[in-house]
């Protein structure tokens, strides 16, 4: 489903974020990507969403090489993914419902169907009935849940999360981890990066460990 082959990412100035990484993630897997800060986790996740392009090597999703995807094709790739970033990246001048609806507006969903999906997504993340609230009135954990609802509202087959619990206390972090596990059980391929090795331990995920741009550990569930 997701296939990295000898992927190198280096930047002008000589810094190398990934120095030849290869791995494969199968459909329906729950994969935890770990490593210290600067190990290359975010760069790797950004490549799957075509936010970054490899300097060499190839990145394939469902068999399609996205390393040299045309700029006009990138939005359509991103629509097939659910993306959760370290910061919630919500629009604070829009309500919770409007934030969650944004991917559906972008894809031109009929408003009635979109509204139903938003309600369902918010209930899925435990925020049912709070659709009219503004994000500023929510806690950090709740804001991250809104971001997760926004990521799943388009029913993606792949969910990618870059340290979604980085700014949350352990109780909130456990709830978020549980949510990702529930999505995985529903058939979604989940790739989540974290620097907390214990966070997903009880779900026995597959693991990828990065260090200084290299894959230094891998274990299947």
């Amino acid at each position, binding site marked *: 489903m997701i296939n990295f082959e000898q992927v190198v990412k280096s930047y002008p100035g000589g810094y190398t974020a990934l120095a030849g990484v290869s791995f494969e993630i199968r459909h329906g897997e729950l994969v935890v990507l770990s490593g210290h800060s600067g190990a290359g986790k975010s760069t790797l996740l950004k490549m799957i*969403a075509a*936010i970054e392009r490899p300097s060499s090597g190839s990145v394939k999703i469902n068999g399609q090489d996205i390393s040299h995807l045309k700029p*006009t094709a990138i*939005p*359509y*790739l*991103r*629509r097939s993914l659910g*993306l959760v*970033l370290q910061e919630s*990246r*919500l*629009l604070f001048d829009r309500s919770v419902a409007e934030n969650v609806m*944004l*991917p559906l*507006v*972008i*894809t*031109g969903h009929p408003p009635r169907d979109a509204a139903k999906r938003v309600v369902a997504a918010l209930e899925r993340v435990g925020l049912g009935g709070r659709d009219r609230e503004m994000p500023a009135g929510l806690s950090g954990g709740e804001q991250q849940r809104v971001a997760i609802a*926004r990521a799943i509202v388009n029913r993606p087959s792949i969910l990618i999360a870059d340290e979604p619990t980085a700014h949350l206390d352990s109780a909130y972090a456990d709830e978020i981890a549980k949510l990702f596990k529930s999505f995985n059980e529903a058939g979604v391929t989940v790739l989540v990066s974290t620097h907390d090795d214990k966070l997903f331990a009880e779900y026995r995920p597959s693991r990828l460990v990065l260090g200084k741009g290299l894959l230094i550990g891998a274990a299947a569930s």
Partner: protein
Amino acid sequence: MNWLNVHARAFAQAVTRLASQPLGTLLSAMVVGIALSLPAAGFVLLENVATLARGVSGTPEISLFLEQGAGVDDVGEITRRLQQEAAVASFRHVSREEALLQLERGGLGDVLGGLGSNPLPDAFVVTPRGESPELYERLHALFSNWPAVEHVQLDSAWVQRLHALLGLGKSAVLLLAGLLGFALVIVTFNTIRLQILTLRHEIDVSRLLGATDPFIRRPFYWFGSLQGALGGLVALATVWLSVEALGPPAASLAATYGAVFSLSGPGLHEALAIIAFAAFLGWLGSAISVRRHLAERLV
């Protein structure tokens, strides 16, 4: 239908942005409107001057003077030829007797009486179909070659002067419109640049969620076009108010020359053209700005 939906959504988004900053919208519309009102007023003024000039000077005519010895047959031949000429709107024959009578009535009876015989020739006064200097030149050449025609008097100097003046005026108005239109494009360019900076976070997030460039650009295009159109409406209102204010004194001035004149504002077609032109310039400014500022990948 989907195409209509996405534009309806982008239009609604642009209207929301305009409405969310009423003072800024008003000020931008005023800047655009006042800039556009100058060439618009110039155009209206030129149209009114052209109308006034036609009214004061009457319809230009060409006079054909026949040879002294021209007879009834010659007059008949000229009449026949004038009737067949498509470029002639109307004509009248002034016989040598009638011309003499007119001069006598004008107070020259004593002078003419001393001559013994009537020195005046038969003449035709021709009104051409049209006012272009080229037409007058062509008819002049044609009539000069007709038999029994001694002299053709072309009273087109004033027509040429009028056309030259109006042409100069039109060029000046076009130049002014070009310069101020460029200013309008710059104003819109800057407004959209500031909007893109303000909405940078929303644009970033939308791109992460799969928004295409056209999806992001459309509301800005509509915003620029709407701002331009609002400016066009302000320009029209300015011109109309000016016409209302200057109309009575202009009519009074014309009355002192014995002319009836009323200053008129732009008609429906001109008004629509001004609004469409302003909207186009707004769109152009936003298109350049969006192209320039969204070209930088934000995520």
